[in-house]
């Protein structure tokens, strides 16, 4: 099968949905002629024109509010928030408006909108351009949250998100934009709410998502080669709705669970995952306490060595896996 990058996969998903459904349009800062800060939407302006590929001023609150209004009146907006850190600049539109309108109005409207936002550290951009804000968002009922780890999933999940009648926050992984993977040419979607087992194993389970998936797989291979232990790696893909069955089944199967995410630990999504495991009958199968390996509870520092030190690495994941086996 042909291979394309994560960024190309997202662009294809956008282009295909724009072609398929005239209600879909795309807006954000520098998304048209510039092609987006990370080049994801390059070329879309040429095909779809400035009515459907809209550059906006630097006005996140207006972008999000306008998406809500458009979604309530027959369109299916996709918006780009240039860095996921800036969702804080449109939190009301996202958390009070997009998320709750349907519920408060007794189900009178759907809210078919997608917020694409690049997340994560590793680019030397310091504290306000490097965060992994999924926990902020997962705590708001009404929002769905997606964090794809492969080009295949990025495309299939984005198409599913655009077709979904709910607001979906699509957290792209900045450092994955240039990674390549197999992506079918035919139309397909990856349903929201289904985890993917990336590696089969019977000794322990790793629950992870986004850019940490690759590191967890590397650590698992190392563990297999050096310690003869087989880690199962579950890529959650969608955080809300969460594939609880897959999480519980794997925990029950292996009896040892490591949760890995780049976002800070305190109040992080890992706590929710631990609670899902501990609150299910998988609890009775556990041979060790559930363990979390997360980003440090600090902002992301600028210095590259410090920056790399505050998020899980293949080494620290491998060490945590070994610890869990003891």
């Amino acid at each position, binding site marked *: 099968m042909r291979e394309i990058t994560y960024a190309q996969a997202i662009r294809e998903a956008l282009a295909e949905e724009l072609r398929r459904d005239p209600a879909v349009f795309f807006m954000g800062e*520098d998304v048209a002629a510039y092609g987006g800060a990370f080049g994801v939407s390059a070329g879309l302006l040429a095909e779809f024109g400035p009515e459907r590929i809209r550059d906006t001023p630097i006005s996140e609150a207006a972008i999000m509010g306008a998406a809500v209004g458009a979604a309530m009146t027959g369109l299916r907006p996709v918006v780009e928030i240039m860095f996921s850190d800036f969702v804080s600049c449109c939190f009301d539109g996202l958390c009070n408006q997009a998320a709750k309108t349907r519920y408060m109005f007794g189900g009178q409207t759907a809210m078919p909108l997608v917020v694409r936002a690049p997340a994560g550290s590793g680019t030397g*951009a*310091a504290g*306000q351009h490097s965060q992994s804000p999924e926990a902020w968002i997962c705590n708001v009922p009404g929002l769905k949250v997606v964090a794809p780890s492969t080009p295949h999933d990025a495309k299939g999940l984005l198409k599913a998100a655009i077709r979904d009648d709910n607001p979906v926050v699509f957290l792209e992984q900045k450092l994955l934009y240039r990674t390549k993977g197999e992506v079918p040419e035919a139309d397909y979607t990856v349903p929201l709410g289904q985890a993917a087992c990336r590696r089969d194993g019977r000794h322990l389970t790793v629950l992870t998502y986004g850019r940490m998936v690759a590191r967890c797989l590397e650590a698992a291979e190392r563990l297999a080669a050096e310690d003869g232990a087989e880690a199962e790696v579950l890529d959650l893909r969608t955080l809300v709705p969460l594939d609880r069955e897959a999480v519980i089944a794997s925990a029950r199967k292996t009896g040892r669970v490591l949760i890995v995410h780049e976002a800070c630990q305190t109040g992080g999504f890992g706590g929710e995952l631990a609670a899902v495991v501990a609150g299910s009958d998988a609890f009775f199968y556990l041979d060790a306490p559930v363990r979390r390996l997360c980003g440090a509870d600090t902002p992301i520092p600028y210095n590259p060595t410090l920056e790399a030190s505050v998020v899980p690495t293949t080494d620290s994941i491998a060490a945590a896996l070994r610890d869990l086996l003891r």
Partner: protein
Amino acid sequence: MSTQPPHTTTTDAPLPPRDTLLRMFLQMSQTRCFEETAARLFTQGKVHGTAHFCIGEEAAGIGVTAALEPQDLIYATHRGHGQSIGKGMEIRRMMAEFLGKATGVCKGKGGCMHIADLSAGNLGANGIVGAQLPIAVGAALSTRLQKLDRVVICFFGDGASNEGTFHEALNLASIWKLPVVFLCVNNQYGMSMHVGDHVNVPDLSVRAAAYGIPGWSADGNDAVAVWQAARRAREIARTQGPCLLVANTYRIMGHSKSDNNAYRDKAVIEQWKARCPIKRLRAWLLERGLASEQELDALSARARHDIDDALAFAEASPDPEPAAAFTDVYA
């Protein structure tokens, strides 16, 4: 959007004293040299991350800071090397911050997008466009409540004037009549979007009318005109309340290091390069007999030397200790 604004150097207002003019020339040269050096470090792969350069916009920063008193406070922008140098920050520690070193002014934890030096009255550059405007209102409120004789200067860009924070901040400052100057560096672009496309007014300073405060623009490539306008703005802020001053200039470089300028006409960039504010100040000083060629050459050489020295200092400085990642999260 007019590209040649009306307010150039005027004989109706006082001119900067000679030593101020020479300092402006030096600091503008230092800023240019700092950024050319920083750009080279990127090309050499010696720096991780990004930077936003104010090459060609030096007068819009340093014309303002030169008009301030030492106790005044500034909020810089992400394109704030000139504003920071002008406010008297130590260039060695700025360069060290850019290189992420422990001796950096933010201990290598903020980088050049977050350069701040509270001891020099620079309350910091921000990575969130427009975030500094309400914060500056708070600093102006604190100035008022503590009965201090100082003014807060809030730098921001044309693009930032479309954030809600701009409008909320100007309104709040206007009803409380706070001592703050909203200083818009209109370099005509918010990233790739031209100001003529991102606002629907012919001149950004007209936005002041919506808040009942004085607003006007100056030729941002004319350091002396900027100085005169900033002097006046400072006086208004100190005695009456907020005002909006727009320094009209042009962003010569791409938005950040990853921008190839595909969205604009390269010929226009060349036109603006020819309007270099440093050359313009130099010519003006010579024309008026305020400085000799030799003096100005010596200042340019000194600027070069200061940046070389800063780079040597930064390169010889240690990286932060690993434990530094965990300090300063809380007081």
